[in-house]
């Protein structure tokens, strides 16, 4: 966690941050927040967060870019969309969480949650085969982020395996060449802006 500054100086605020988030499709309404806490009260994981969704939204508006994008809490969102449907101001909180995750990756902030590594591995696998390959995904992920977890979960993996729920060989799509081309193009588009 960041060290708390003794006095929050306006000079340290990034006042443009909120507009940046509001500009992302789904983020528009972030400026309407009245801090009622419906989102955090509904969130299944907020009780473990340093910064609940509500306070993340507040910090975005205040302009604490680094603090928000470095926050491990944005990786705790399970995208259950409860905040999204309950928000009295129709703020798409879940989508904003996604947006923050992406900004955090873009800004190359040190990621403090494994959620990021899972996502990364997931992407790798999908980009390779066009489909997800759970076995490989889990191997990649655990090796990358949580070797001990691999051993902890080996037994469950075995259980699934003997029930034919853990195929060894990946399912690949036929048009992998085209698929990768599409992905590459999409990447370049989203990076270009």
């Amino acid at each position, binding site marked *: 966690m960041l060290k708390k500054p003794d006095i929050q100086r306006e000079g340290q605020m990034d006042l443009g941050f909120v507009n940046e988030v509001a500009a992302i499709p789904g983020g528009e309404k972030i400026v309407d927040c009245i801090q*009622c806490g*419906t989102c*955090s*009260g*509904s*969130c299944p994981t907020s009780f473990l967060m340093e910064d609940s969704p509500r306070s993340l939204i507040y910090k975005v508006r205040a302009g604490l870019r680094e603090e928000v994008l470095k926050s491990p809490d944005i990786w705790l969102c399970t995208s259950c969309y409860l905040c999204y449907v309950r928000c*009295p101001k129709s703020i798409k909180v879940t989508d904003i969480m996604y947006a923050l995750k992406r900004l955090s990756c873009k800004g190359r902030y040190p990621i403090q949650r494994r959620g990021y590594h899972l996502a990364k591995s997931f992407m790798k696998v999908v980009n390779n085969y066009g489909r997800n390959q759970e076995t490989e995904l889990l191997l990649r992920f655990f090796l990358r982020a949580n070797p001990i977890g691999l051993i902890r979960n080996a037994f469950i993996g075995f259980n699934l395996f003997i029930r034919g729920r853990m195929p060894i060989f990946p399912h690949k799509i036929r048009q992998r060449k085209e698929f990768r081309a599409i992905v590459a193009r999409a990447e370049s588009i989203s990076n270009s802006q």
Partner: protein
Amino acid sequence: MSPKIGVYICHCGTNIAGKVAIDEVVGFAKTLPNVAMVREYKFMCSEPGQNLIKDDIKKEKLDRVVVASCSPLMHEKTFRGACEAAGLNKYLLHMANIREHCSWVTEENAPATEKAKALIRGAVAKAALLEPLEKKEVKIHPHVMVIGGGIAGIQAALDIADSGRKVYLVEKDPSIGGHMAQFDKTFPTLDCAACILTPKMVQVGQHPNIELLSYSVVEKLEGFVGNFKATVRMKSRYVDLKKCNGCGDCWNKCPAWRVEKPKGEKKVVHNALTLGPPKAIYMPTLQSIPAVPVIDKESCIYFKNGKCQICVKTCPTGAVDHKMVDVVREIEIGSIIVATGYKLFDVTKMPQYGYGRYPNVLTGLEFEHLNCAAGSTGGQVLMENGEPPKSIAIIHCIGSRDKNYHEYCSRVCCMYALKFAHLVKEKTHAEVYDFYIDMRAFGKGFEEFYNRLLEEGVRFIRGKAAQISNEPIYPEEEGKLIVRVDDTLLGRVRRVPVDMVVLCSAIEATQDAQDVSRLLGLCHSRDGFFAEKHPKLAPVSTAIDGVFIAGCCQSPKDIPDTVAQASGAAAQAMMLAARGAIEIEAATALIDEDRCTGCRICNDLCPYHAIEFISDKKVSRVNDALCKGCGTCVAACPCSAIAAKQFKDNQLLAEIEGVLS
């Protein structure tokens, strides 16, 4: 000879001058045909501004006036007055709306100036063709009708009746009193609702100038300011208003219940709490006015199988009559006050709070009934098992300040929540948790009230309760309702176990308000509340002359505001009546009988049946008294034999040409 037009351009301070280049516009106006005089001034509507116009009319012999300023809906009356004062027929005035439709809605200065020019060109072109009209006056019928018998309707009715004028008070329910009659105490002063309302209700019942039409609905309304005709259906209550003495033997004997009967574990049924007798023949409250019961058709045994009639047998005055039928009356009045009140938001639309699924989750109104001394529990706060609660959660903003339901703030919830908190503290030893988003204590004595409750030890939690469940995770939650909330000031998620939950549900517009608005042609805002004529300066008037609004049908408000508004509306109605006569629309339609072929297309087209067919002449003729000047017939006439005064074809075409060229 060609007309002499004077053009008067208003700066409206910087409202217009800030966007529109006045000098440029003045120069432009001078070049327009028939314009004899152009002036500009800071505030045309001011005394000196109007004098400019008056003087020019006298000195320069102007015979047409164009004022380029705000919307005609704002100041047409003012400037017509000025013309009249100077001896010019006031219908020879035309206005160009260069504020609301130009300077206020345009980003850039140059286009705003261009637009202003165009609008003035159009106005001048039309003004040149304007014709003098003579004004028409109609008598004002002195009687007034008040629709809705809540505190607003009661106040208005009494004020007018005391001024010595006749009032018809129409109430859809069996008794007047509305929501206020169902409350126990009133915030912030905590005086007892019944104690202050009942005397007023009795007055209404006894007042020689008030004719109370309870259990009645307005079905039809015709006419116009000063001369309305209302058709009222008085629903049959199956008890004779004159014969009944309100002794109550009937409901004591009546075997049928109109609400769920408490039994077994369910000693108190929260959603079946009533203030009056719970039987099929009942009065809404024991203080009902008129103090005459009514039979609830759904639950009455006789209406199911034609047997029973115990009430008939027990009634000492023979007032009960199951054969009674509705009575329809036509009533003539000069003005109408609409005070149809509100209804409460249906909290089952928010399942996360478990209303209807969990016992002991109540709406605000149910909690009022629970507290009401005259109610089923004699004013005790009890759970459905008959025990007093050890802890209560009061949750604000249910359906208010919520785009999924009602975006507006219901304005009274914060304070009635505090009132509830106080009542609980007073009557039980329960711990009270109050979940709020913002504590809105804006009214007289409100902040002090909030302070009082802080001192009474209510546990205030800033955060909207997210959900309520009955499933314990921790030992202290066994057998409780658990409120899950983000305590925004603590920055932590809390689970608060309580015995009872009160949901402060929003105030919303009623369905019958919608019917009334159709009936009278009232405008209402998107959330269903009636639109006042001007949000600040005409808060009780409406777009329809002679129809006024008061109370929560206009917007959510508390009792003091409602009463104040009701008195305001009453004053407006009395003002009309006192005036005796009023000028009405002079811009009616006129049929040129030489051009009329008698095709009669217009006859059925007219919504006011103002056009009659003169059979011997084989032409149609407009009845000026009935015509409202909408011009529908004019547009429809195949041989353009009909002209709409002030909106004649040539006038409008000239204006169109003007604004476009």
